[in-house]
């Protein structure tokens, strides 16, 4: 029983993490029809921004060593700046292209970022210790002890989700964003500033990426230049399975992927453990065969005839 509760919390924690990630992807897709393959690399940059540029194996913590609040603010600011930079200098110019072209653009951006990191920090993995207090355990009751970080991830996710919902529903700019996400051209014809809405989407997406980089690096304690790629892929899978173009779908998809991932980890026989990711993909493919547009349907997913 205790093991089950721990697994449940683990599943919720994983699910929350993927929900946040899928949300970051979903925001940009809904407003801009952009599949941002560089999202994972934004997270990577956030992680590497914690340390001093060097090729040492044990990283010297720079920003990571500041007061926690300051660290969080700095990292989030850096990633948001990166996101805005990529909007103004890269994505803005290809906005009129097809989603497919924009996808390659983001892939190119991501790959360039990865290798720029190698240029600055070298290619070897680095150990980094950030927010060590969170990696400790807390006793919930007799026999159930969970990692504090897992609870933090769940809490942070829900705080962010609720804030985002309030923002989208209650603020003028938020409503504009929802309108623009559904029908960008019509929104502009009613006076909504297209550039501002898109920039805002990038800021939100970048902010989410910044927070995720902190959570991720605290959890793993390792920085590698390619670390953003597998997680980015999982976020996309979550968006696809949840229903592209829907923010609710992104969250649902994120939880689905996270929960299945943990359940598989817990239940797969020893030899197949390494193939857990493949099994997650298999699960996703089965869902997509039954329901190709994803779980939550939106206007974006429906074909225009």
């Amino acid at each position, binding site marked *: 029983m205790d093991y089950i509760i721990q697994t449940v919390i683990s599943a919720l924690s994983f699910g929350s993490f993927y929900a946040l990630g899928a949300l970051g992807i979903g925001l940009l897709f809904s407003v801009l029809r952009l599949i941002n393959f560089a999202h994972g690399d934004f997270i990577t940059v956030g992680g590497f921004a914690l340390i001093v540029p060097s090729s040492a194996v044990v990283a010297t913590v720079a920003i990571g060593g500041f007061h926690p609040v300051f660290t969080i603010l700095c990292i989030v600011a850096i990633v948001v700046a990166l996101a805005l930079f990529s909007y103004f200098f890269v994505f803005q110019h290809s906005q009129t292209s097809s989603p497919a072209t924009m996808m390659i653009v983001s892939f190119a951006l991501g790959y360039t970022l990865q290798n720029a990191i190698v240029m600055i920090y070298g*290619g070897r993995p680095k150990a980094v210790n950030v927010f060590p207090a969170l990696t400790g355990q807390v006793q919930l009751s007799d026999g159930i002890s969970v990692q504090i970080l897992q609870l933090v991830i769940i809490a942070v996710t829900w705080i962010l989700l609720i804030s985002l919902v309030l923002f989208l529903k209650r603020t003028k700019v938020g409503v504009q964003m929802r309108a623009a996400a559904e029908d960008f051209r019509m929104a502009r014809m009613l006076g909504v500033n297209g550039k501002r809405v898109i920039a805002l989407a990038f800021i939100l997406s970048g902010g989410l990426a910044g927070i995720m980089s902190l959570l991720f690096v605290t959890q793993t304690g390792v920085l590698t230049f390619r670390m953003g790629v597998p997680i980015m892929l999982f976020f996309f899978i979550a968006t696809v399975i949840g229903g592209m173009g829907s923010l609710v779908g992104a969250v649902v998809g994120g939880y689905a992927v996270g929960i299945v991932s943990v359940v598989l980890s817990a239940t797969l026989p020893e030899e197949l453990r390494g193939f857990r990711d493949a099994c997650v993909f298999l699960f996703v493919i089965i869902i997509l065969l039954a329901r190709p547009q994803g779980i939550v349907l939106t206007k974006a997913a429906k074909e225009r005839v």
Partner: protein
Amino acid sequence: MIEANTPLLRLIRYFWPLVVLCVGLLIVVVIVDASGDIILAQTLVEGLVRIVIVAALYLFIGNSGIISFGHIGFVMVGAYATAWQTCCPYTREMFMPGLPTYLLNNSHHFILAIFLGGLLAALVALISGIAIMRMSGIAASIGTFAFMMVLYSAYLRWSTWTSGASSVIGLPTTTTPWVGYVYAVIALAGAFLYSRSKFGLALRSSRDDEVAAKAAGVNVFGQRLLAFVVSAFFCGMAGGLFGHFLGMLTVDSFYLGMTFITLSMLVVGGMQSLSGAVVGVVILSIVIDVLRRLESGIGGVTIPTSSAEVGVGLILLIILIFRRTGITGNQEIYWPFKADISASAAMKRQS
């Protein structure tokens, strides 16, 4: 003015882009072969193998409009399948102990091995394509990316068949420039003929307007699957060629790097043109070579490691922003002489 007014000339005019590309490559191969420069020959072989891959990419991406990030997975499947058949007869068991007895004890001629490698890749494409090609264009692209990652991590863990993270060493280095050239011609011809066939036409109609294509009776799923499988076949063969060029294989070489480079070559050259595939390979191979040499330092100038990758990335971004259709503008190399015989004949008849 040469008019295409004999059957032979008409044939040449039809195949003109293909002819130009093959003859052009032939000239390069002859020159490099004559020069005897080994380093140059190696760069050439690498380029020719890339041409096979990028031609296959063009076959699928150019005609379907769906970006595939997964074809390098097929290259890997073909490469290792070849290794299972031709590598290191005396040490095979040491590198890949899990192989079935037949493979442990027998070796095939490299041409057969490469062919079977291609077939295996095609089979893998068939199975995965049945799931992936059902999805919408963007979701399918994500699916191919996921597929490549799954293959990569599977091959990484499957150490009894692939040696996992370490290398498999000892493949016969049978890929000479001439061998590479022959396969490049085969791949180019295959991509060319496919595009000009009714299958290519049907697929392109779905690229331009999926709904209209379906309404016209095109089996979009089937056509996409077909192109996926055929392109995977060529990629598989390229993998075998690659293995027989390097003499060794590592799973890590078939991951993001190769995916990025080959995709860039296609995009920079022109995604919807076979000539673009070749142009892209040539241009970026030169760029990468120059940057790599600068990384090692020439004449006192040294640039940091990974500059080559960053350089290619920047080039790709610039092309995508300023000239989406690539260097060739999505056009093939055209017959330079006076065009249609039937039109001029008709005009003659009228007057």
